[in-house]
């Protein structure tokens, strides 16, 4: 009954002031992504559920908004952007030379099964580097992530890096069931050796595997993983994964960003397609991650045509904004002067507005024909800086009302433009 006045649960409106803040973040990110050679792609908001659910894991599939098309096919709102990008690359960019660098700034939608109210629409900005599996590619992604966060004005950012397959292979080696693997993952994330040892004792993990878990869980920096001694053949491809992490570390050293990067052996992402390094970015003033990502080498081939390794990240715009606000960052406001033009002679007003706009000054034209007093009241309330009353022709000086100082003066349009030009 009242739905015409509301928006659905978990969605909201964004008013001009807030949009400006989001725009600041999105424009900064877009700018830096482009500087690093990434090109923007856009995908449809609704897609076939099959395309969107490929390889992302059951949790995210459960959280998709699904509905039926007129021909009976099941559609969904995209819950993340990597699957759409993978589909685009597979179907539309197959002949592009690799590596392919793309970025997106999009809204994504997630439906929470929980009765606890959470947001359902989020804006994400992310990049994907597709077609190579080198440590340089992983290093580029981490470096771009850190550079992006710093560019936004965030301080004390950090990125915690883990390795999806390293954890997976070692978990497999335990032979534990799904539930116990979950417990093990929690204990690793608590970094509590006593509880970890007790758990591994109770579950009769072989001593070499126990030692491997303990050693990895003690590492806090990427270079420390080199000291973990393990036999390559024993637990999956552990040695390869460690080599990969150390390769990434070397690249980070060249970028001189090692100090921002930490190792977290327990790190797991909710999305399933990751095969290599995985990571989360955070700032100390915000209790939730700013974003994250990782390497997904087997994902694109699930779309059936191209076998392309890839790596990338996504940032949550809202989280970045919250972290900036928590750090007391002043989002730079656009300082352009705003002018309201009016005249008894319509053509003169339109001509004046054109001159101002050509000069890059934000200009609105009076459309009400109100009297002077009402117009000035409106200007005050609407955040206008100057009211510009044009006489019958622009050759004559106009009367300018300065809203800030509540003072009027007569001035020609050229003179006036010079004075506001400094503000524009």
């Amino acid at each position, binding site marked *: 009954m009242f739905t015409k006045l509301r928006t659905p649960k978990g969605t909201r409106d964004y008013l001009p002031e807030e949009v400006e803040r989001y725009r600041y973040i999105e424009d900064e990110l877009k700018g830096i992504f482009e500087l690093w050679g990434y090109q923007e792609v856009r995908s449809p908001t609704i897609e076939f559920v099959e395309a969107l659910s490929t390889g992302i894991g059951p949790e995210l599939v459960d959280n998709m908004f699904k509905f039926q098309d007129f021909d009976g096919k099941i559609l969904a709102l995209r819950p993340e952007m990597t699957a759409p990008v993978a589909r685009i690359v597979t179907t539309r960019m197959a002949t592009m030379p690799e590596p392919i660098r793309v970025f997106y700034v999009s809204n994504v939608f997630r439906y929470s099964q*929980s009765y606890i109210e959470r947001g359902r629409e989020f804006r994400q900005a992310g990049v994907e580097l597709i077609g190579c599996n080198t440590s340089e590619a992983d290093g580029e992604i981490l470096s771009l992530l850190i550079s992006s966060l710093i560019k936004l004005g965030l301080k004390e950012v950090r990125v915690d890096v883990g390795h999806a397959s390293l954890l997976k292979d070692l978990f497999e080696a335990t032979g534990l069931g799904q539930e116990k693997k979950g417990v093990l993952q929690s204990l690793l994330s608590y970094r509590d050796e006593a509880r970890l040892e007790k758990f591994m004792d109770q579950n009769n993990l072989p001593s070499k595997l126990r030692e491997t878990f303990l050693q990895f869980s003690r590492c806090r920096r990427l270079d420390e993983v080199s000291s973990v001694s393990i036999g390559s053949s024993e637990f999956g491809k552990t040695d390869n994964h460690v080599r990969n992490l150390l390769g990434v570390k070397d690249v980070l050293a060249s970028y001189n960003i090692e100090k921002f990067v930490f190792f977290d052996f327990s790190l797991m992402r909710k999305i399933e397609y990751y095969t290599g390094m995985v990571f989360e970015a955070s700032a100390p003033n915000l*209790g939730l*991650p700013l974003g994250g990502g990782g390497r997904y080498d087997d994902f694109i081939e699930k779309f059936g045509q191209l076998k392309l390794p890839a790596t990338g990240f996504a940032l949550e715009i809202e989280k970045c904004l919250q972290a900036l606000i928590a750090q007391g960052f002043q989002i730079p406001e656009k300082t352009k002067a705003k002018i309201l033009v009016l005249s008894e002679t319509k053509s003169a007003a339109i001509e004046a507005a054109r001159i101002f706009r050509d000069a890059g000054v934000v200009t609105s034209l009076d459309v009400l024909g109100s009297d002077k007093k009402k117009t000035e009241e409106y200007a005050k309330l609407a955040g206008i800086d100057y009211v510009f009353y044009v006489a019958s022709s622009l050759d004559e000086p106009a009367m300018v009302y300065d809203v800030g100082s509540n003072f009027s003066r007569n001035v020609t349009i050229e003179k006036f433009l010079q004075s506001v030009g400094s503000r524009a």
Partner: protein
Amino acid sequence: MKRKIRIAIPSKGRLKQRPIQVLQRAGVDVLEEERAYVSETSNPKFEAVFARAFDIPVYVHYGAVDLGITGHDLILEREAEVHELLDLGFGRCELVVAVPEDSEICSIDDVPAVARVVTEYPNISRKYFEGLGKQVEILEVRGTSELAPKLGLAQIIVDVSSTGETLRKNHLKAIATILDSTCRLACNKIAYRTFESEISDFVAKLRQGDLD
């Protein structure tokens, strides 16, 4: 300079008394126990916040506080994704399904396929009964769900019980235990990264205090 680490302590209810003592033994004396929402402590690295035990999991999840002392049952009920760094041992209780003593329902299997349940724990209760394949209507109340059977609102309640005393006094019997709970030290996931050394020192001290 690093900011202070915030720890939330239940402001009232069954979980209030012990946390303050436990913190004291870990070298964090809460200096203003009464009234103040944010209280200084004897340890310059920590400040204490008093909050409803029920809300603490949410505060920790979002990082409004870095640490929180609250029940395991409440962490599950609020679906908070937090690190449970320490089982503090106290505040032991069970979340039980209870019915009037004279009810024909004697075990969880006797619960009819369609029933009404009154509880302070709608989320856990819904999942529990769904897991049993039973469709129940859940009525959420704050506190005293024991009243519901007396008033004929529902035969079945889901509530915490530590000694069984309250159930007996209200002529109720427990027919199933959904989970066992104790107080936990919950930690925000990002805060654990940011303040790892401080927080693990604190956890070590808490653990030592426990043994003394």
